[in-house]
């Protein structure tokens, strides 16, 4: 798990964000078992109560599900997975737009630059950040 927790955003939101990215990129597959909240807390060096809260929130959002006493799993619901992906893309695009708009870059120029530079970024194809 390589996730850098920053100290200004709520930790549980950062954890959820991390899971969303893993789901969207397919690193976490539908139905895959995930670590217990304690294991997660231990791996990320975060408070177990926070990990608990992130899991609860994800459960409510339908990102993960738990049957009885078994470990939690990633949702198998294709619709949700699709939504997560779209949400992340939209978020990234919005961030991008906000940045280029703030320095008055016309749309055509921006698109041109995207096309030119997208292939150059070696890590980009893997889907990781």
């Amino acid at each position, binding site marked *: 798990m390589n996730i850098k927790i920053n100290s200004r955003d*709520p930790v549980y939101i950062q954890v959820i964000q991390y899971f969303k990215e893993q789901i969207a990129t397919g690193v976490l597959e539908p139905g895959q078992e995930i670590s217990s909240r304690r294991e997660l807390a231990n791996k990320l060096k*975060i*408070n177990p109560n926070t990990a608990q809260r992130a899991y609860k929130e994800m459960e409510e959002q339908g990102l993960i599900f738990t049957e009885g006493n078994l470990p939690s799993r990633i949702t198998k619901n294709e619709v949700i997975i699709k939504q997560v992906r779209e949400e992340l893309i939209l978020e990234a695009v919005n961030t991008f737009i906000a940045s280029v708009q703030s320095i008055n870059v016309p749309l055509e120029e921006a698109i041109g630059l995207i096309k030119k530079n997208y292939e150059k970024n070696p890590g980009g194809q893997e889907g990781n950040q």
Partner: protein
Amino acid sequence: MIEVKDITKKFGRKKVLDGVSFTANKGEITCLIGINGVGKTTILNAIMNLTPTNSGEILIDGEKIHRETYEKITFIPDAITMLPQMRITDAMQFMKDFYHSWNQNRADELISFFKLDPNDRISSLSKGNTAKVNMLLGLALDVDYLLMDEPFSGIDIFSREQIADVFTSHLVEGRGVIITTHEISDIEHLIDKAVLLNDGVVLREFNAEEVRENEGKSIIDVMREVYQA
């Protein structure tokens, strides 16, 4: 819950604590933050009835401390509380002799977790290992509350990481922890609640995650605001 209610304490004419109040819940990690000499250790000593206070009240689960309370709350001071000539195994035997809440299985687990040799004499241990033994003696008690005074200060980075790991493990789970520190960065993401102290008063008591969510601030941001105001 540990309730500290308006305690004051004077050393001679100097007020070390001047109306300190805060609470610490079971199942949460509460961190007392402040520079050295601000009264953090005195507060922990007062909770454990190791030093008298001039006024105010301290309740543990609604009761004043009495001898049985030491079976459900324990304190890990910044120096080891066993005789230097004892071996680790003697120290564990001592604890076992006196505390019903001593959990030998957990002690053994901690020995291997910290990679300690039970036959080592306490006087021969490195600073980091001494701190670990000190932690072990407190953590192996099945108590509801754990107080720790500066568990990260003055020890090497690897020991620090090992000790930090304790906080995310089952060893602390479900218990109420009060920890003091003058250096928050090691444990910023581990704590539930922060109590900022200065000159014997509580400047602010807040839930770390709430402040991040509602104000978009890190604990250090809040400290900057509070201490530099």
